[in-house]
């Protein structure tokens, strides 16, 4: 039946997101908070994340382009906010890259920061794509009872 095949596909995609380290336990915690009163809670929070994080990435990129002396404190503050939000939705790889960036910031290693920033952007873009696919498929499947969450 087409419906159960989509369910299976969805379960596999989710399992892969976790197995490959894109998402961590916190994402499950968010799904636990979803209920009839807030059936789209996870997608709403993820949307907020990508809205805020895109803005932060733009600001960081601009700050990195500024002429010397580099304001590493400001860079750190911006990346802290990104890491904080990433952590709140369970975006593990993004969070980890943010941590690496902040360590390089601490050492005032501009070259390192520039390289690390590219990695942060890359992980951010990959996750965005994967989650867009995930939610799109979820919408096709329709409301799924928490009890029938399979494949875990």
């Amino acid at each position, binding site marked *: 039946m087409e419906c159960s095949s989509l369910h299976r596909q969805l379960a596999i995609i989710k399992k892969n997101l976790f197995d490959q380290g894109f998402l961590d336990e916190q994402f499950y915690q968010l799904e636990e*908070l979803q209920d009839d009163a807030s059936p789209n809670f996870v997608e709403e929070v993820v949307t907020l994340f990508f809205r*805020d994080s895109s803005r932060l990435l733009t600001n960081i990129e601009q700050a990195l382009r500024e002429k010397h002396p580099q304001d590493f404190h400001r860079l750190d503050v911006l990346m802290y*906010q990104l890491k904080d*939000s990433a952590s*709140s939705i369970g975006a593990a790889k993004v969070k980890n890259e943010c941590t690496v960036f902040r360590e390089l910031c601490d050492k005032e290693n501009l070259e390192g920061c520039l390289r690390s920033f590219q990695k942060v952007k890359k992980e951010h873009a990959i996750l965005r794509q994967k989650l867009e696919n995930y939610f799109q498929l979820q919408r096709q499947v329709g409301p799924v009872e928490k009890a029938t969450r399979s494949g875990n």
Partner: protein
Amino acid sequence: MATPARGVPVAAGEREIHVLAVDDSSVDRAVIARLLRNSKCRVTAVDSGKKALELLGLEPKVNMIITDYWMPDMTGYDLLKRVKESSKLREIPVVIMSSENVPNRINRCLEEGAEDFLLKPVRQSDVTKLSNWIR
């Protein structure tokens, strides 16, 4: 004089707990609000210490304040200090949240009168325990 903040009576002896949540991150505000509502609290969420103080000055009944530590302009610690320095507000329990586990920071907040210090990401179990601070 230790007069605990009382909830607004809703029905037959039941109180509705009103929590003021303060966090500059919209993601974190959405999550903490959801966690609190799941614990049957009424939630008002604001994005800065300044707005929190404005709201508290308008005298709605707030049974607890839960605030992020790091925020631009006014930190959660600054907000905590302002609340504890105010004769009107000092009885309101304040809980601090942070994504960073810094013992000095935690101690400073507890010494200043914070009831608890939660590490982000905050879980449902953390929030359920908060009702202990509301008498």
